[in-house]
């Protein structure tokens, strides 16, 4: 999910171009899509095509409005009305306050949190035919399971590693302590994600649960960030800002999602390498959740149509994320995208749980205050 930004004009133009390509793909793939979902789904997924509008609160990398939504409507009668979210906290509040969203996207440990708050319904993931396209490991994530069923339909994942320019950063970083090295002052660029940055500082200072640190751990993380602040060149609002800074070499290293090395290369930038700090990294895996609404009975039908592998390659080319859909990986390899997919560890979904996963904090105010106390004037 790292697209914490709203759609820009550029995004819209890209989406338009993407849509044209995807439309033709969908046209080619619609037969297989219908058959795979139609036959196997007979006893498990609602077959009605009664028109209904599902309200979806999600990020813009989760769907393709140009080809995916018309195909879903044609097959199921479901019209999707999307509201774009910015980050997990805001989306949680929005969905809880409004109660109008039928499907909501969330990251990692936010998924069980929605359930604990009584907002979502578990479902039988194996009863949704399209789930057979998923890597089996993703149908078995313990964080998303309880006795009543699965809490979210797995979509994609990433971990945040240190990406560095070997021309300037040498030796290769092995620890978050690289941020304290005076020779790298003003050379670290990072997306402005207060909680994640504090969590990374928590890892650097030995916190066990970086998204739920004790006051003492949080205090140590804050001190680390204060010492590391001179390394920060700027905090940017989007991933594109990080890629730009690494490409023009105004920044030499970052903490970013998998595949940043490829993105910089695509942008015409220098060689960028990845490093995994010994203290660990943070990461996310996101899912679509079945909200407790009057339209909950159409959730499985929606997921069965939305999750088809045919829709993923265009989204992969646009957003460069490792989905949990194994069938789509094979399609990507056949389309010559295998190298990039492997760089994202697409074919190693078990890696998703190895990062410290994003989740809600018991005291989010303390995290923001810690962040502000470092980056305020």
């Amino acid at each position, binding site marked *: 999910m790292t697209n914490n930004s709203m759609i*820009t*004009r550029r995004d819209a133009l890209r989406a338009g171009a993407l849509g044209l390509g995807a439309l033709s793909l969908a046209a080619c793939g619609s037969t297989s899509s219908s058959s795979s979902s139609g036959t196997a789904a007979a006893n498990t997924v609602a077959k009605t095509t009664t028109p209904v509008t599902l309200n979806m609160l999600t990020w813009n990398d989760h769907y393709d409005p140009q080809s995916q939504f018309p195909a879903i409507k044609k097959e199921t009668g479901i019209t999707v009305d999307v509201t774009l979210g*910015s*980050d997990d*906290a*805001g989306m*949680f*509040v929005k969905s*809880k306050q409004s109660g109008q969203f039928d499907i909501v996207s969330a990251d990692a440990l936010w998924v069980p949190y929605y359930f604990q708050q009584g907002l979502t319904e578990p479902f039988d993931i194996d009863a949704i035919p399209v789930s057979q396209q998923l890597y089996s490991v993703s149908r078995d994530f313990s964080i998303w399971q309880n006795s009543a069923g699965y809490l979210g339909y797995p979509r994609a994942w990433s971990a945040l590693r240190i990406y560095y320019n070997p021309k300037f950063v040498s030796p290769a970083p092995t620890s978050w302590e690289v941020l304290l090295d005076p020779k790298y002052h*003003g050379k670290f660029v990072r997306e*402005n994600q*207060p*909680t994640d940055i504090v969590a990374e500082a928590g890892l650097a200072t030995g916190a066990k649960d970086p998204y739920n640190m004790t006051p003492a751990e949080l205090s140590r993380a804050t001190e680390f960030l204060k010492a590391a*602040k001179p390394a*920060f*060149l*700027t*905090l940017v*609002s989007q991933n594109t800002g990080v890629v730009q800074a690494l490409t*023009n*070499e*105004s920044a030499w290293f970052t903490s970013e999602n998998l595949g940043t090395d490829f993105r910089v290369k695509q942008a015409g930038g220098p060689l960028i390498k990845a490093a995994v700090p010994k203290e660990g990294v943070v990461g996310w895996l996101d899912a679509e959740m079945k909200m407790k609404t009057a339209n909950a009975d159409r959730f499985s039908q929606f997921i069965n149509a939305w999750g088809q592998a045919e829709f993923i390659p265009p989204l992969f080319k646009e957003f460069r994320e490792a989905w949990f859909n194994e069938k789509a990986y094979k399609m990507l390899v056949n389309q010559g995208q295998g190298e990039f997919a492997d760089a994202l560890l697409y074919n190693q979904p078990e890696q998703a749980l190895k990062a410290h996963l994003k989740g*809600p904090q*018991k*005291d*989010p*105010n303390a*995290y*923001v*205050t810690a*962040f*502000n*106390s470092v*980056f*305020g*004037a």
Partner: protein
Amino acid sequence: MSSSTTPIMSDSTTAVPATPRRRLSLRRGVLALSQYTGFAPAMVLFGLFFAAPMALIVAYSFWTQDGYEVVANWTFANYRQVFSTPVYVNTFLVTLWMTAAATVLTLAVAFPFSYWLARYVSRRWRRPLLFLVILPFWVSYLLRVTAWTIILGNNGALSRLLGVVGLSTPSWLLYDRPAVIFVLVYLYFPFAALTLFAALERFDWRQLNAAMDLGATQIQAVRRVMLPQIKPGITTAVIFVFIPILGEYLTPELVGGTRGVMIGNLVDNFFQEAQYAVGAAIAILIAAVVIILLVIFRRSLEVGEMYGR
């Protein structure tokens, strides 16, 4: 009980036919109210788009933040947190300082331009020049600021120009406070220039000549004769520039780096993590500064003067 014997005071509480006197006062009341019906759309708009959201922000700032939710339990805790955390007070003061600096610089750049335009440029050329002043508005705010990150960046035009003349790029050219102030001056120059031009255009330049004929130096003539007359224009320009800059967060985020942060950025961090109560408290404090400034400026600015009356 007949109506003729009913005391006037009881008329309002009993259903009796209206007397001619009562009908007259009713008609007068309706007439008095009808004078204000024209304000109804403005009142509705004001209520919906200003008063109600503002009231909600005020309420949020006094409500309790419980995890990710705001609970309607009244408290001063949010304001206490703001005032007891040094970084918020410091950032607030730095923001005021940066806003004042940007406002002074904007007016310092805009005044000579407007003076030249109003006094020395023929009417034929004024229109195209004014058009050039507002031309940047045709491009989105975000794009204009982003363009400056490219111009001021490491390999940007300015850096290359400095390299050509043998100078090294100063570290504060981008991602620091001077960069923020510079870009803010660029962004708000049109507001100041147009407002000052409107004031200077009405000024009778013969008064300057008369003052100098009577022995005043040019600076004295400007200070004692012209400035008092265009004071409402200057005040309006200050209001148009200072107030929006005070709440800025996008420009500092894009060109300020970690050293050019303003208070708006800290509010944004709170809102990003759904900590609306403390965020609202800081937003209300920003609004309070604006209100205080408007009260101060009100003494030197009558509403009529803004419209040239």
